[in-house]
């Protein structure tokens, strides 16, 4: 983790992937967004030029995706590319809008016995890096929802 460093006038916060929309003002939530095909209803992460399900090229509806979803499947990665810390939980989470997202599951020991298919998870964001220009790179991650 890079050293804590607050964003200055020149530096800013940047999302690690384009379908993460960061809150523009203090107190505004960051969220994942998607596009929904007006013809067939297929939902995608981020912006789209066309629908790969029905081939429609009509402009799509912008959809704010839920912060909560369900764990579909996962793997525990013990060996990865150079510089990637292991082990960690690599997962696919289904969101209620009908789209799934690839993510890390944090907040649990990376062991299959701690993970249940369909378990509720929630998204949060976190600074993961500061680039050479001083910009803060913000990533989204998921963690189990603590049932009340």
């Amino acid at each position, binding site marked *: 983790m890079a050293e804590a460093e607050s964003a200055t006038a020149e530096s800013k916060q940047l999302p690690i992937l384009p379908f993460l929309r960061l809150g523009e003002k203090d107190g505004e939530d960051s969220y994942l967004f998607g596009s929904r095909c007006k013809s067939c209803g297929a939902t995608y992460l981020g912006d789209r030029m066309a629908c*790969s399900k029905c081939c429609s090229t009509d402009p799509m509806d912008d959809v704010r995706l839920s912060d909560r979803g369900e764990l579909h499947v996962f793997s525990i990665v013990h*060996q990865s590319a150079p510089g990637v810390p292991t082990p960690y939980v*690599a997962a696919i989470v289904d969101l209620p809008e009908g789209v*799934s997202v690839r993510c890390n599951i944090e907040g649990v020991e990376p062991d299959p016995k701690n993970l249940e298919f369909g378990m509720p998870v929630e998204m949060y964001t976190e600074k993961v890096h500061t680039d050479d220009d001083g910009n803060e790179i913000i990533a989204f991650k998921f963690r189990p929802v603590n049932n009340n």
Partner: protein
Amino acid sequence: MRDVAIVGVSMIKFGRYPEKAVQELGAQAALLALKDAGVTMNDIELMASGNLYQASAMIGQRILKEIGQTGIPVINVSNACATGSTAFREAYVAVASGQYDAALAVGSEQMGKMGLLGGGGGGGISPEGIVGSGLMPAVFGQAGVEHMRKYGTTQEHFAKIAVKNHKHSMANPYAQYQIETSLEDVMNARVVAWPNTLYMCCPTGDGAAAAVLMSMEKAKQYTTKPIKVAASVLTSDPWTERDLTLPDVSTLTRNASKQAYEEAGLGADDLNVVELHDCFATAELLHYENLGLCADGEAGRMIDEGETSIGGRIPVAPSGGLLSKGHPLGATGVANICEVVWHLRGQAGARQVEGAKVGLAHVIGLGSACTINVLQA
């Protein structure tokens, strides 16, 4: 389209050849296949060459500079792990169309130690490991977990696949690794991406394989045992629910096998031997169902009961599979075809599937491409 036959095949032992250039590996395999067919480069009218890591380097032409610059058309192909089998299919289509009577397909690769993990991202920070994983080990781990979720399959089922394939490899001198492993060895090996342990992942390496194809009419002038290409199919991944997030390796394989069985006028029950894309043990189990070797949800039982071992109902990966034989990306698809041809000719030595008449070679390239070739003695 007219009937096409395989007249010559070859592969070199997969492994590491740092002292050689990739075109030398390809040239070696090509010469062996030409010799097996009883022809020379002067008889070849078209060449299709598959190579992934050096896709922009005209490897096909480089191979011809080693073995014969006859001025014929050369097609260089890259299609992820389906690179070699796509090159084979290009050669097949060229002959089947009637435009050429004899074609050469070569697959070659030199991976060094780079492997399937590759490097990190370009400039800036890579999302790998922060926002899940797009690398093969995690993808095929998750694909296996999806089968567990659906059918209650266990890690032990997947481990048994590795035990079977490593056992098969003991009779294959072309395999990169010939190491028998017990179930305990496989289960207790270090985890790469759960549920796959080290022995459930294919090794990386270098290698080459080649095939000579001819119109059936011409083939009969060269051999009394032409192997008919009863079907040669290539599909890409259609839209499915999660394909953009977790590559769906099943649907395009199901589409390809359906097309292939129709094209061949044969069914899964007619198969005597199968080489499929066991890049990870989890993948092989999924493909039992995708290829129709068993009903959905039956793959775990199939491996439990030994149906896919040599001597079983439908032997899968008698070569040892990618898990033992190795997976030099561009060479893999042609090598799978080579292995099936050897069985159909009765030339597979100690690992021979007795009386094999019909075989299937399947390859998946993630991103995705699937090839299926059904071959018939």
